[in-house]
């Protein structure tokens, strides 16, 4: 098997607070292969964004990576000096955030921001950088790119701004793009355009994508594999088709059932009782046990580790222990 582009092993992220240390990410492991799109879903507070921030080394102190390792092409990037990490960030890993207004500086033109980023990371002349920036803006679908490049961010609409942010993330030709809720702030009709642009342009350049979102629909049409996070732990990971059509973890099953769909009419939506525990109140054993209808004695005692289920799938649930035979 070829070496994965990104490998995360037993990642632990902690936030010390006055009332003790909170574990936002608790031993999460996954890989992203070259050219692959990995979707990461979960509800708010599940740790999706923090996983992304940990990979690019942007965990806000006093938060810290307290364990595990993150490797990019075999090289550890979780313990680099801030100076070295800065060269990885942007150059080898690009970022797209939810709100395009926070990732663009309102006081500089789009051209200034793109050219600065390109010249920071690549050894090219000002003229060459500008030509690249225009070509990239054109590629992400900004009409009259050569003229509009000298506009300020507020001249662009929300969808156009997010295209600029995608161009910014890709301008140094990174190997991995982390997209954190890239379409959540946009209208549905624009959402489809942005997802298409992101997917196509990364495929063209062979960049892998880690797509963080709470929207299963976006994952369904974009990702190759999907990882489901719950309370900072990995509940299930596997090929998108398998997870969506035949979810195995009770949490994923409940999550899928609770999404109203256009296709069928149901009287009531499946509902998972309760809500996700706060980080300071995660129960012993499986974090999902208070809300799980199938929980049994072992779930309240031991924490389940992700079990391989064949076909590249892993499920962290005691129901599937005993060599793949589900409990009755």
């Amino acid at each position, binding site marked *: 098997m070829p070496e994965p582009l990104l490998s995360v092993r037993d990642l632990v992220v902690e936030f010390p607070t006055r009332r003790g240390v909170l574990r936002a990410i608790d031993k999460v492991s996954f890989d992203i292969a070259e050219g692959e799109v990995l979707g990461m879903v979960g*509800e*708010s507070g599940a740790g999706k964004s923090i996983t992304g921030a940990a990979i690019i080394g942007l965990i806000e102190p006093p938060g810290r990576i307290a364990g595990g390792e993150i490797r990019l092409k075999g090289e550890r990037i979780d313990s680099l000096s801030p100076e070295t990490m800065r060269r990885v960030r942007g150059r080898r890993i690009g970022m797209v955030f939810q709100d395009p207004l926070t990732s663009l500086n309102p006081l500089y033109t789009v051209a200034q921001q793109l050219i600065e980023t390109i010249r920071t990371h690549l050894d090219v002349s000002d003229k060459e950088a500008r030509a690249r920036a225009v070509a990239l803006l054109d590629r992400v679908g900004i009409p009259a790119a050569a003229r509009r490049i000298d506009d300020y961010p507020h001249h662009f*609409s929300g*969808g*156009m701004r997010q295209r600029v942010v995608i161009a910014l993330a890709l301008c140094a030709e990174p190997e991995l793009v982390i997209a954190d809720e890239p379409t959540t702030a946009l*209208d*549905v*009709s*624009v*959402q*489809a*355009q942005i997802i*298409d642009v992101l997917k196509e342009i990364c495929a063209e350049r062979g960049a892998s994508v880690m797509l963080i979102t*709470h*929207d*299963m*629909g*976006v994952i*369904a*049409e974009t990702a190759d594999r999907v990882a489901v996070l719950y309370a900072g732990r990995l509940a299930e990971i596997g090929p*998108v*088709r398998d997870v*969506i*059509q035949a979810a195995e973890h009770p949490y994923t099953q*409940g*999550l899928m*059932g*609770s*999404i*109203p*769909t*256009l*296709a069928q*009419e*149901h009287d*009531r*939506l*499946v*509902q*998972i*009782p309760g*809500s*996700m525990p706060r980080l300071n109140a995660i129960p012993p054993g499986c974090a999902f046990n208070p809300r799980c209808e199938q929980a049994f004695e072992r779930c309240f005692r031991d924490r389940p580790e992700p079990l391989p289920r064949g076909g590249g799938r892993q499920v962290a649930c005691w129901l599937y222990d005993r060599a793949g035979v589900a409990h009755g």
Partner: protein
Amino acid sequence: MAEPLLKVEGLTRYFDVSKPWLNRVIEREAKQWLTATADVSFEIARGETFALVGESGSGKSTIAKMIVGLLEPSAGRIVFDGQEMDFASGREMRALRKRFQMIFQDPFASLNPRWRVGDIIAEPIRTFGLMSGAEVGREVGRLLEVVGLGAADALKFPHEFSGGQRQRIAIARALSSKPEFIVCDEPTSALDVSVQAQILNLMRDLQDEFGLTYLLISHDLSVVRHMSNRIGVLYLGRLVEIADGRKLFSDPGHPYSRMLLDAVPDLTLSGRRRRQVEGEIPNPIDPPPGCAFHPRCPHAFDRCRAEIPQPKRRGTGEVACFAVEEGKI
């Protein structure tokens, strides 16, 4: 047909977005008006759920605010249970307001953080003088249980609750004046899907139990499909289509409705490609002439660029589109 509970006719609202007077004089600019809602008419029957869908800037929330009396319409009328809303008469508005309530999108902003949950829920009861003394406390406890919380929660503050629980509190408050009609403005868009399912189920149960009528405002078509009997589709302040829930999804009339349906991500993995939607919503200060949708519409022809289409009957619903009217699509 029985008299509708709510009837809206030609509802229009402008907002003045001009620069200050001195700037206008110096820069020789005219006053600028933003048309948030133009000539919107619909009816809601007792006991049904009517939904308004549309993207941001389509005027959904403006309509909701006018219906509950938080904003005065620039033109048009709102008739609630046969009685026309008179914004000038405080006394009449007050009497009407008791009969409808609103649930807002963000349960972190709509509950006063300094008030105990019990006081939040009791406020409408006290304001309208519905009960007094110990009765109020008992009623608050009962309402909390109705929405799936406990009577003891009345003593807590909003920050002690999660987003879903806060939305339950907001629902309990809306129910406390025993309204017949509730306007729900994006009631679940701030919530996670598993919590969204709980709230949507609760809203349906309450509707059955108390015979409520809902106006549901949402941008999420799957939520709308799940909840509503009839749906109105808004684009840039105008209603482009009204249709029965099922009908809209199986046989959308207006090209914009078709586009919206195509843009919904597909969870069934049927391999259906989302059709690329061209362009974005135009600026409402300077909308295109004729049908506001024509720059993005694949079926647009000359008439669409010149005239504004009026809603015409189509089956059990209405569509405002020349291409549909002339049988071109």
